[in-house]
């Protein structure tokens, strides 16, 4: 039983990273109709930025947790203005070329400066140790990640569902052209939403730094699973991306421990789930068929 609790807990923690990344991809896709293949690179930049800030300027984790999402959000907004917004009128192939190209550029810039080896990042002192839950104890830092991510997702959900800004974003995501016809300057919201999505990726990166190896390819490895998460949740569905993020984290953790005798299954279980979901619901679990403009 305690093994099960352990697996479930670890699955939720991995799921928290998937949820944060998928949430950013979902709001970006919803508003811009751009699939941001560079999302993993921004996650990596978040972790690397935290590492560089600590080792070269002595900036602690808590400050990095604020600085990096803001800095990367601003970088994202600048990129949106400079290049991403040009994608709207082009064939989707250019979307892939541009954002994948950005990934390679960002990765190689970091590689050139810091090499490909992984760098350790110490867990902040306040979050070291473990929390005793009676029957089991879990590392404090992981408990923090889980709680923080859940709060953040609830906060994003609250803004989207309860505020006027959220209402406009939902309307513009569902039917951009119709929303313009109702007097709303959808274009004005595009840049901040892109920056917000990138900021979330950066935040996930900072959170990952003490837990995972910080290296230039850390985003590339993760983002493939995140795309599966987004497809399962339903491309553009905010709730779907978060639910599928945590769900896939669980499925992966359970698969790895209970199907370890069948490595072919346990290593590909995310994609098996994705294939089954797509056969059953082509728009994803919480996605809707694309509405007319």
């Amino acid at each position, binding site marked *: 039983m305690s093994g099960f609790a352990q697996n479930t807990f670890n699955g939720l923690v991995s799921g928290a990273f998937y949820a944060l990344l998928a949430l950013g991809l979902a709001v970006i896709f919803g508003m811009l109709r751009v699939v941001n293949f560079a999302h993993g690179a921004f996650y990596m930049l978040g972790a690397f930025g935290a590492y560089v800030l600590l080792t070269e300027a002595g900036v602690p984790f808590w400050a990095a947790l604020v600085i990096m999402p803001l800095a990367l959000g601003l970088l994202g907004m600048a990129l949106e203005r400079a290049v991403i917004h040009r994608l709207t009128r082009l064939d989707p192939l250019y979307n892939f070329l541009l954002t994948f190209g950005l990934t390679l550029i960002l990765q190689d810039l970091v590689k050139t400066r810091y090499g490909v080896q992984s760098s350790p990042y110490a867990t902040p002192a306040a979050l070291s140790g473990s929390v005793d839950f009676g029957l089991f104890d879990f590392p404090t830092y992981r408990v923090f990640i889980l709680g923080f991510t859940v709060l953040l997702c609830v906060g994003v959900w609250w803004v989207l569902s309860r505020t006027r800004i959220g209402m406009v974003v939902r*309307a513009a995501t569902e039917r951009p052209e*119709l929303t*313009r016809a109702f*007097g*709303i*300057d959808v274009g004005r919201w595009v840049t901040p939403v892109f920056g917000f999505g990138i900021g979330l990726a950066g935040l996930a990166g900072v959170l990952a730094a003490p837990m995972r190896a910080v290296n230039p390819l850390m985003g590339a490895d993760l983002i493939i699973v995140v795309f599966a998460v987004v497809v399962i949740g339903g491309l553009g569905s905010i709730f779907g991306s978060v639910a599928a993020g945590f769900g896939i984290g669980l499925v992966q953790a359970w698969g790895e421990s209970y199907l370890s005798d069948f490595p072919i299954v346990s290593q590909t279980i995310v994609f098996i789930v994705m294939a089954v979901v797509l056969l059953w619901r082509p728009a994803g679990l919480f996605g809707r068929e694309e509405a007319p403009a």
Partner: protein
Amino acid sequence: MLRIENLSAFYGEAQVLREVSLEVAAGEVVTLVGRNGAGKSTLLRCVMGLHPGQRGTVSLDGRDLTKLPAYKRARLGLGWVPDDRGAYATLTVTENLTLPPRVGPDPWPLERVYEAFPALYARRDSAATMLSGGEQQMLALARVLRMGARLLLCDEPTEGLSPLLVQQVGDLLREAKQHGVTVLLVEQNLHFATGVADRHYLLAEGRIAEAMDNSEVRSRERELLAYLGI
């Protein structure tokens, strides 16, 4: 109020409107009738600024709209009632109503909207796409009244509605007209059209074939219906 001059519109290579010119005076209700594919909906979309391939000018109260994006046209008082009713699945009924900013001199307060549409009030917290087709049509009309739009662009507001609901839509448009609202209406239902409108344009193959008043439409109803293929 609305003046359209030499408006041509294209879908790729295909030309759907050819040098259309027409005017709608303030407070008038004018319909566009014509067969499917005659270009009626495209004409409304051009006025709203939602059709990219167009030539010619559209002006409102003497102000050229041609270069303005759709959202700025809406803020000048254009109210869009799309042919698919434009209900947002991710917004509640109340949110659907309050999404557009108030743009005109006489926007309906939400309380008044709900008084006039008790069915919408009863479902105010449901997703708008959970409403019946008729209720969604009421929502589309209520939304532009709440905006306070001065010129309504209604694309077949009676399509698929029961006779009772058609009558309600007619009452609403007449009431709006009494408050000085101008309406440009795409309509296939000639009986409904003569009941609410002052004048009619027959659109054929992208051109204005005829301009008619109510008595002319009534006296030629059989001929027109045969032409429209209804």
